[in-house]
């Protein structure tokens, strides 16, 4: 026992200089990991007595120029917009303005582009799993397997809404959201517009589609035209019924409200991306007595839709609409893939909670990604 204690004591004495050495100020320059090769990461740990610094880079003639001087005892800075494969020399000078003491550190690094951003590994794994699941279920759907999907009453009600409009001799109003064609919600809305337009063509009911964006207007016109042709009623197609109103959010809303009050559509469909104007649209529609179906991927607008519409598609139901209406096995298969994705997320959330409780920080760190 005594021998063991003396060995430990000697080790500590021997290691002490190393430990104090490890606390010495340091400065390092290294290639920024997982980037396109245009950045260098500079890290420093200074003597706490210092109160200012100057970070300098050498130019092609070897002359150092300052490019950063925000002081921190322990910090880092990323030098960006560099050339790939070039070598750069740096100098860090730290000062104590009261005593005039200074320390100089130098370092150099060569930029290198990486093939893969390891910070996004977790994202790649999850994306691969979800996509693989979607493709697997699409394959199953193609093979003829019966894939169950629960009822979405908002979409079942489409026939009822079109029927009511036909009975009353009033038009149907379809607003494909206020976002541009780059938003998936708008694409989802146009997917629903297609069968809706086909049905209204079959019943001979007028369809009005005001658009906030001209690109959406072009896509909507193509969609409706194709639908009318499929229904065998190309003569009934009216290009002027699908029109651009205004890019301005509330200018568009004022226009749509005006249409609802003048034309008195019997059925309103508000599907796509909506913001603060959602309640203005749906309350005006409620006032005209129309049957209203709404759906958006924006969670904070859903309560307004639920309160003033007869049917609401909540979040993912909007994206499922195309598959639900067409009953295409491939599209139904992709919906099952979404469900797998949700199961994966639930498992990861539970696993993450357990890992945090047990103090396994690596689990959360792996999924955090980022720099």
């Amino acid at each position, binding site marked *: 026992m005594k021998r063991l204690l003396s060995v430990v004591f000697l080790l500590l004495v021997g290691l002490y200089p190393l430990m104090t050495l490890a606390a010495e100020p340091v400065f390092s320059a290294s290639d920024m990991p997982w980037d396109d090769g245009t950045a260098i990461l500079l890290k420093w740990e200074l003597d706490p007595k210092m109160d200012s610094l100057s970070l300098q880079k050498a130019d092609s003639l070897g002359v150092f120029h300052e490019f950063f001087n925000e002081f921190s005892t322990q910090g880092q800075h990323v030098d*960006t*917009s560099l050339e790939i494969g070039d070598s750069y020399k740096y100098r860090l000078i730290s000062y104590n303005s009261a005593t005039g003491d200074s320390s100089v550190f130098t370092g150099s690094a060569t930029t290198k582009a990486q093939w893969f951003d390891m910070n996004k590994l977790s994202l790649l794994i999850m994306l691969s799993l979800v996509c693989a699941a979607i493709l697997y279920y699409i394959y199953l759907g193609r093979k003829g397997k019966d894939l169950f999907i629960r009822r979405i009453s908002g979409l079942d009600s489409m026939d009822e809404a079109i029927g009511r409009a036909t009975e009353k001799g009033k038009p149907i109003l379809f607003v494909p959201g206020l976002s541009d064609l*780059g938003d998936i919600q708008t694409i989802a809305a146009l997917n629903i517009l297609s069968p809706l337009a086909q049905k209204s063509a079959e019943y001979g009911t007028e369809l009005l589609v005001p658009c906030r964006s001209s690109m959406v207007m072009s896509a909507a016109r193509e969609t409706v035209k194709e639908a009318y042709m499929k229904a065998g009623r190309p003569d009934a197609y009216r290009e002027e019924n699908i029109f651009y109103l205004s890019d301005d959010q*509330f200018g568009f809303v004022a226009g749509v409200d005006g249409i609802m009050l003048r034309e008195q559509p019997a059925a309103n469909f508000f599907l796509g991306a909506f913001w603060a104007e959602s309640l203005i649209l749906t309350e005006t529609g*409620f006032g005209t007595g129309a049957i209203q179906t709404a759906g958006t991927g924006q969670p*904070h607008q859903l309560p307004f839709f639920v309160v003033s519409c007869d049917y609401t598609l909540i979040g993912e139901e909007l994206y499922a609409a195309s598959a639900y209406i067409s009953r295409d096995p491939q599209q139904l298969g992709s919906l099952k893939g979404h469900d797998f994705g949700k199961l994966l997320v639930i498992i990861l959330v539970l696993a993450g909670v357990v890992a945090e409780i047990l103090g396994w920080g690596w689990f959360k760190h792996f999924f955090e990604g980022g720099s």
Partner: protein
Amino acid sequence: MKMPERTVIERRIVFLVLVLAVMLPMLFPLGLKTQSTPLTQKVYDLIESVPAGAPVIISFDYDPSVITEIQPMALALIEHAWQKGHKVIATAMWPQGPQMADMAFNDVKEKLKSQNPDAKLPQYGEDYVNLGYKPGGLVTIQGMGRNMKAIFPSDITGKKYEEISLLEKVRSLKDIRYVISLSAGDPGLRDWIMTAKGKFNVPVAGGTTAVSTPGFLPYVSDQDQLHGLLGGLKSAAEYELLMGYEGSASRGMNPQSVAHILILLLILFGNIRAARKRKMDKLALEANNG
């Protein structure tokens, strides 16, 4: 089927009462005080932590329809940034954004001048610049992350990017110390979070209308995807409180508070009416059944 006439009349009474509930506190202020919340404090701390001379972006991604809620935030943030010596770069993802920016800069300058006529006011091109509107949203921000000059070759006065002294050291978004997006919809704050923070790791804070705020709360986490959030008029009033003055947002909290109480009362009356109707229907059913 159109709404029954009784419902139409009730609606109009509700509207009239709301007008009075908003108008009267504006004419006769109640003197109510607000207090700061952690989300507002986080935005304040972000600006406080950045040293003088740092280039920052305030993106005016809104139009005049939300001017009452968001413009007070803009005024308070610009004043704070100038107080800290930050160089403010105004951009806009909405077409009317540049005008909102100019209005805000001019209003703050006038306020500073009225407080101290001899003080040196912020100079255009040195302390702030308005780069104007660019369509494209997320795509534009990605472009800014590579090369700001390519996206904004000149400012709204037509002056070339390289001639503006403030922008001398700003090559891309990576040179920006923080971005605050004042956003009323899309494109806006979400695009800044996904691109500026997600891709280029630039701290992002936001100001939105109250109705959009719940949707952005998931981003305010320990990962700092969003470094604080100003949600609606109340947050604007909180920021004014932190800045030590009472502006239009603080004054606006009087009618807003009264209107909230009115809506709660309307909910109560609505429930009383619904309960009475259910009771009468039940009695009628019992009478019919004998």
